[in-house]
């Protein structure tokens, strides 16, 4: 379950990365061409950009919050499991030492 979710997050990160690398350049180039050739008024391009920026910022913010929460839960589970393993190793070590002493 965790593995599937981890892969899903990894894919989402890759998609965000691609989106961040392509969108600003594509938007700038497209809007410049459309504005220069008078296809779209500058005001429209500005508001489209502002809307896109807002939607991206809000989506990223919530995605980041959920992802961080998930990562923290994984980290905390991993750390609990490590503590358990550490405690078990201590018990096994003690038992081995006791056996040694008995001999």
């Amino acid at each position, binding site marked *: 379950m965790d593995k599937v979710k981890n892969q899903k997050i990894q894919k989402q990160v890759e998609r965000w990365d691609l989106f961040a690398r*392509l969108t600003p350049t594509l*938007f*700038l180039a497209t809007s410049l061409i459309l*504005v220069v050739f008078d296809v779209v008024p500058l005001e429209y391009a*500005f508001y489209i*950009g502002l809307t896109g920026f807002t939607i991206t910022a809000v989506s990223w913010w919530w995605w980041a919050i959920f992802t961080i929460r998930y990562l923290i839960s994984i980290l905390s589970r991993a750390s609990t499991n490590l503590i358990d393993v550490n405690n078990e190793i201590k018990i096994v070590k003690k038992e081995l030492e006791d056996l040694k002493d008995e001999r």
Partner: protein
Amino acid sequence: MKDKTYRLVKAATNIISGLSMTTLIVLGVSYIGFNNAFVFNNSGIAVTNNPVTGGQINFILEGSRRHECILTKVHSDAFDDATGERFALDFARKVYIRSDDYLGSDTGEVDHQWGVPTPDNMYPGLYRVTLYSEFECVYLLFKKTKIQTFDNISLIVK
């Protein structure tokens, strides 16, 4: 794609994307600044030859202009302070006294003086003048029609 080529492409797209984002932010902020800016800042209009005795009312406009703007429409009315009666000032017959750039597009400090004929049917008294002006302003890629109105310009006719 080879690892080195992939890295190069990734680095290049990162740089281009960063520059595009910076350009978009700078253009966006400039557009908001241009959109919200007044044509004239810290400006005022006054009648310089109060009380008006002759056939001409002289005005002065002082202030500063940040963007290049061209005057496209102007209209001015004088309202009798007591009765509210309206007298249109004829801007088609205006004469420039000090500057010939009121219609022009110079930025920086503005000091314009012009005169308009006193309306024939105007009688002695105190008037409040309003001036409505429309400008076509340009800045970088941006272009916008802006309106600036000046109210409560005191005019005394003798």
